[in-house]
């Protein structure tokens, strides 16, 4: 094998890195529109799943238009904020702002059983990366109608179990208020008794994800406290 000078090696590396960087940024720019479109469909699909409407990528748009009737943005005092599209609010960016400046999106939906529900997006931290999802509440603003959770990189079989139906269906019918005080839903290690209206079973081997999920639901729903209390039946 031919010997190369240090100078050659440096130049070779620089040329290689620069051309690779140019190639990759070009690809990323060209593919971005298609990728964003996919993420949008995914978001709608997750929202539909939180009101227990199973959707495929093909019929998501159609079902979304059918079931999601309205969307609006609140501030932490429960007042309507105009001029912001709820769908485009990025929760992660909002969470970095002080509470009084945060935009809190709400979606209204009417599933087939005639229930009028609101959908609240939630976002938090798991063990390895972000967790996100949607919690839908019945019109009493207290009973959970359905949930959908997803994650970026939790361990398959352990933390990743949060987006399976058996785990998510535990949330149906749980209450987030106890009279007027906000309790949220606890994800309990070692299991929650059947009669517990504020608790669900945690995931064995996924304690940190379970805890992250619990604080995600608590933190995000708490911000809607004033609005929820005001609109309770």
């Amino acid at each position, binding site marked *: *094998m*031919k*010997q*190369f000078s240090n100078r*050659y*090696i440096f130049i*070779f*590396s620089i040329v*290689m*890195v620069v051309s*690779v960087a140019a*190639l*990759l940024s070009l*690809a*990323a720019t060209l*593919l971005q529109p*298609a*990728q964003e479109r*996919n993420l949008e*469909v*995914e978001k709608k699909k997750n929202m539909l799943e939180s009101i227990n409407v199973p959707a495929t*990528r093909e019929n998501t748009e159609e079902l979304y238009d059918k079931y999601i009737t309205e969307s609006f943005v609140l501030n932490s005092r429960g007042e309507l904020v105009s001029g912001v599209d709820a769908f485009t609010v990025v929760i992660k960016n909002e969470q970095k702002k002080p509470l009084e400046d945060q935009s809190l999106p709400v979606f209204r939906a009417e599933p087939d059983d005639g229930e009028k529900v609101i959908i609240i997006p939630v976002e938090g931290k798991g063990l390895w990366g972000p967790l996100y999802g949607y919690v839908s509440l019945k019109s009493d603003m207290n009973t959970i109608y359905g949930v959908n959770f997803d994650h970026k*990189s939790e361990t398959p079989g352990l933390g990743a179990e949060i987006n399976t139906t058996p785990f998510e269906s535990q949330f149906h019918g749980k209450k987030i208020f106890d009279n007027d005080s906000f309790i949220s839903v606890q994800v309990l290690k070692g299991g929650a008794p059947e009669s517990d209206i504020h608790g669900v079973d945690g995931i064995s081997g996924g304690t940190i994800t379970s805890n992250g999920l619990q604080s995600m639901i608590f933190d995000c729903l708490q911000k809607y406290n004033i609005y929820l209390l005001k609109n309770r039946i």
Partner: protein
Amino acid sequence: MDNQEKEPMFSAKNLKLLTEPFGINNPITVQVLGICSALAVTVKLKPAIVMALSVTIVTAFSNLAIAALRKYIPDRIRIIVQLVVIATMVILVDQLLKAYVFDVSKQLSVFVGLIITNCIIMGRLEAFAMANKPWPSFIDGIGNGAGYGLILVVVSFFRELLGSGTIYGYPVLEKLGIFNLGYESNGMVILPPMALIFVGLIIWFQRSRSKSLIEK
């Protein structure tokens, strides 16, 4: 040197590069490389096929790139250069999957990124592309990628059939009425260890047929 340049594109030697990885030089069952991803993506047929295609594309094109550059790559930094080439290809594949087959990219999630660490690719670059011309290297890449893919598809076919009762998402067992005869989908087949057992069975089958593979 001159003789070799006139060699036809699909000479016997080149064809051997393409076919050997399916049989006596299979990357999974003979070289025992790339096992980790073989366990992870073989629960269903669809991700297995996409993974097989992705790995084939990455192997072939990084082989091609490295073989074309082989005379200019300084020996002292060759591993880094190989890694840069592989990583670039993998990121490109990942971006394409995200743009055009989002569901699959979600299913494969971390495993696409892990193609970078798939020992088959690095192995082929180091063992073949660094010492051969671009065209044979390209064929070698396709051969090895496809040989890897073949095992993936075979394993995932049985795992999907026995574990979920479907083939490529189509409920075969249900349509055939096997479930009515009392068969239930075997949950254990879905777990990663069973993939290892399937790979083991394939190795056993292969070695019992071609005795030359058995170590003395």
